[in-house]
């Protein structure tokens, strides 16, 4: 896997994460007492949007065409309330972290530092959404 392919995978994961946050944000906006979760969803969305822009610029800068977002994504389960929204958010962060973990392995130097920082951000957000601190975030096989 070359570094551009790895970054393309990260960008695809960011498109999916943004879609997911858009979906759960819409639900949280209608949940009574859901303001803290909605604020967290907004900051998480902003973090992923920033990563998406960074990845797009990196890929374009290398002369490649950034992978486009799909028109829609299947959510793994229905999000109807605060609890299912938090569960989805944890899953989105977990999946994005896993992709960044693979990108860390496939890259070197500055791009590795960028992907490692992105992995860290996903792990922090996953815990902020209520996940336990795992000894090996982003490595699902461990």
């Amino acid at each position, binding site marked *: 896997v070359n570094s551009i392919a790895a970054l393309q995978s990260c960008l695809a994961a960011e498109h999916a994460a943004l879609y997911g946050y858009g979906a759960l944000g819409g639900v949280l906006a209608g949940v009574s007492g859901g303001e803290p979760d909605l604020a967290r969803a907004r900051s998480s969305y902003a973090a992923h949007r920033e990563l998406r822009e960074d990845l797009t610029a990196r890929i374009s800068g290398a002369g490649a065409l950034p992978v486009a977002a799909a028109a829609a994504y299947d959510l793994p389960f229905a999000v109807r309330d605060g609890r299912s929204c938090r569960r989805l958010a944890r899953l989105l962060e977990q999946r994005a972290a896993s992709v960044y*973990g693979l990108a860390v*392995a496939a890259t070197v130097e500055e791009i590795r530092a960028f992907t*490692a920082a992105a*992995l*860290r951000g996903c792990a*922090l957000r996953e*815990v902020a959404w209520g996940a336990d*601190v*795992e000894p*090996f975030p982003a490595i699902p096989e461990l």
Partner: protein
Amino acid sequence: LVVDAIASEEALGNFGARAAKTHRQLATLLRPVQARGEAHAELLRAALVNVEPSRVRLTTRVPRAEQATRTKLVALISNAEQRRLADCLASESGSLARVFASMSASHAAAGTLMRETSAGPSQ
């Protein structure tokens, strides 16, 4: 790189174990630190091929005061986070870099949670 990382993770795990004995009321905070340090060290030991892990054990004194122990713990975790990130960036092996990045992120999450807990109204 790996040998030093094992010693560092073992030291963190050992601190968690010894501090939990000294400050039993912090056990729920310290046992996961011990477990993570041990899990990290175990995985890294398995990655060593034809190299003996160091027999030198790094130890950090456990403060007698509870708050000082919390402060020390946060500092140790922050140090481990930075060192595993440096190991990630220095690693020639991509798979090892991934493991180090994961460990660093795990320490980052633990440290953040610990700082938030310490700053909480219940403390």
